[in-house]
């Protein structure tokens, strides 16, 4: 962004899959040849117009893209009420919650299952936390007629029962994982164990922009449809780019999908929102705020860990955010200072959730409720003519039971 630093922020990772010191390929030798094959095949697919055309066609006619770009008038007005004179930025949303299956996860699953079929793989596995990625994976497997096994922590199976049922309806086998705390990290361990034993026929559809190279890159590329559309839509509607982008971060796939196409627009600021759970001094899932670099699940990134490098459990009200790591590109973007990161507590996210319901008639998922909570803090500090664009990456149907419980309502 300066004369001394003419390099693009969009040319990561390097040829060894590193984003600065982060990323890489920290996997068992059994998986290494497959990871190298996947990279080769992904390079070919990326350069293949027919692959891109099939991806685009499915996104348009099956997923329902492009998703709308929406100006939120009543939320904007509400946040301006308590702002100083002249303050209170416009709030816009990228409506990825309107996608088929109700979240951004499907974008990536379409891309990866096309890759899997290109590689001749006949069996799909996935991990899931909240169940959104599991549902999206089960969906594309049903669409293309491939058997699907989804690993899900036993704790998450209990708190996300509707999504478990959805996956089963779609023909997937859901395997509850009882190891550890029975959440996303444990599900990912078990999916890796399955993969290493079945590399010959199995493709692992990783749900976030993390894991061994080339996953962080390819998930980002598939999710970048969010930012590419949003950038074009914003220019078409307002003739300008947004001032700030805001997105929630667990692994960080919706955020990197929104941010990446804007990284070389120097006037566009970006804010990633981690889950602060009960608070950063208590149980939380904010890997950047409360972690330090380490190696887990195939990549080097910021991790919640103790002094011996043992991984500690993340906590968030949102099952999609309680992972003790973060995608490696976010770790790099934070260290180079291109993206700012903040965190939002469970309580603040619940307030954001209810505020959007009341002001805009949109029930968001608890994941983007974190982004909304950050927007409520940010908007009153910005000028009225400035624009915040937040990613509404999932809808809240799956969360109404846990929200009711937190609000003390019995359904």
């Amino acid at each position: 962004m300066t004369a001394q630093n003419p390099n693009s922020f969009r040319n990561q990772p390097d040829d060894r899959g590193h984003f600065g010191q982060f990323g890489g390929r920290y996997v068992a030798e059994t998986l290494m040849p497959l990871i190298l094959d996947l990279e080769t095949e992904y390079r070919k697919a990326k350069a293949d117009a027919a692959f891109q055309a099939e991806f685009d066609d499915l996104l348009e006619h099956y997923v329902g893209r492009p998703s709308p770009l929406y100006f939120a008038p009543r939320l904007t007005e509400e946040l301006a009420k308590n702002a100083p004179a002249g303050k209170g930025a416009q709030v816009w949303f990228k409506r990825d919650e309107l996608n088929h299956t109700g979240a951004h996860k499907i974008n990536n699953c379409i891309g990866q299952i096309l890759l899997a079929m290109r590689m001749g793989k006949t069996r799909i596995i996935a991990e899931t936390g909240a169940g959104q990625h599991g549902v999206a994976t089960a969906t594309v497997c049903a669409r293309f007629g491939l058997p699907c096994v989804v690993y899900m922590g036993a704790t998450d199976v209990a708190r996300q029962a509707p999504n478990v049922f959805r996956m089963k309806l779609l023909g997937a086998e859901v395997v509850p994982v009882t190891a550890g705390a029975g959440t996303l990290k444990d599900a990912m361990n078990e999916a890796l164990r399955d993969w290493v034993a079945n590399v010959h026929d199995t493709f692992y559809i990783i749900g976030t922009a993390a894991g061994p190279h080339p996953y962080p890159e390819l998930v980002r590329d598939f999710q970048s449809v969010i930012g590419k559309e949003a950038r074009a839509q914003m220019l078409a509607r307002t003739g300008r780019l947004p001032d700030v982008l805001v997105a929630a971060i667990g692994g960080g796939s919706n955020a990197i999908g929104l941010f990446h196409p804007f990284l070389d627009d120097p006037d566009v600021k970006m804010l990633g929102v981690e889950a602060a759970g009960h608070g950063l001094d208590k149980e939380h899932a904010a890997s950047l705020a409360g972690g330090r670099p380490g190696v887990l699940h195939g990549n080097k990134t910021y991790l919640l860990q103790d002094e011996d490098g043992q991984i500690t459990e993340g906590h968030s009200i949102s099952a999609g955010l309680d992972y003790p790591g973060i995608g490696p590109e976010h770790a790099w973007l934070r260290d180079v200072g291109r993206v700012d990161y903040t965190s939002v507590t469970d309580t603040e996210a619940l307030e954001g959730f209810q505020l959007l319901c009341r002001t805009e008639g949109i029930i968001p998922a608890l994941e983007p409720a974190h982004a909304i909570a950050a927007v409520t803090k940010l908007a009153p500090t910005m000028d009225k003519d400035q624009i915040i664009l937040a990613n509404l990456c999932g809808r809240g149907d799956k969360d109404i039971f846990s929200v009711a419980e937190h609000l003390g309502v019995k359904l």
Partner: protein
Amino acid sequence: MTRLSNAFAKGHAALVCFVTGGDPTPEATPAILDALVAGGADVIELGMPFTDPMADGPAIQNANLRALAAGTKTAHILAIAKGFRARHPDVPLVLMGYANPMITRGAEWFADACADAGIDGVICVDIPSEEDPELGPALRAHGISPIRLATPTTDAARLPAVLDGSGGFLYYVSVAGITGKQSAALASIQEAVARIKQTATIPVAVGFGVRTPEQAGGIAAVADGVVVGSALVDLVAQHGADAAGPVRDLVASLSAAVHAARKDIA
């Protein structure tokens, strides 16, 4: 000659025995390691527990969790190693584990601590040759062998890269999968070891799924070493702090079979 190369130059195949450090407690591990030696193990692999052992099956996963639940720290593992070295000056000792606990204080710190504890080699499951700069240079600078794994998916084109910078022995994982599950057919192991030895100049030890003296003896006839882990870890799970006796007995039967097997591959 090093302790590790000596272990593979006894005129018979080497028995490599794995247990998880700190399982059931850090205090119980030294007696279990002594039992491995008493039973006739030629190389000792001491597992460094990790919260997320994603290459391991249920037996070793649970051993990791038991060790951590018992309060096992990296400092305990290093102290266990140091004590072992004092009691057994000639028996090679290898640490096996995952990257994060090894690099978390820096590779240089870890390599220095390993050298101080008398550790001969380090197997890091999730640092393939592509990520060697993470740990390999520091280990080699301290005279510690980075021991790499080769698997059925490691083809001839890739093997030289796996061997480059590695030392001690090559650990051939005979099945694509996690520890403690199925075992490979002897014929396929023989073919794989013969193929690897066309390139490898270090000994080749074979592991994953080896549980009985019969299996171990069969492999010992076609490889330079045999690795047994989950079967021993199962005994520790069953007998806890009293595991030393049963562990010694199983290792004695394994070593008798391994040491008696004629070694066709020089």
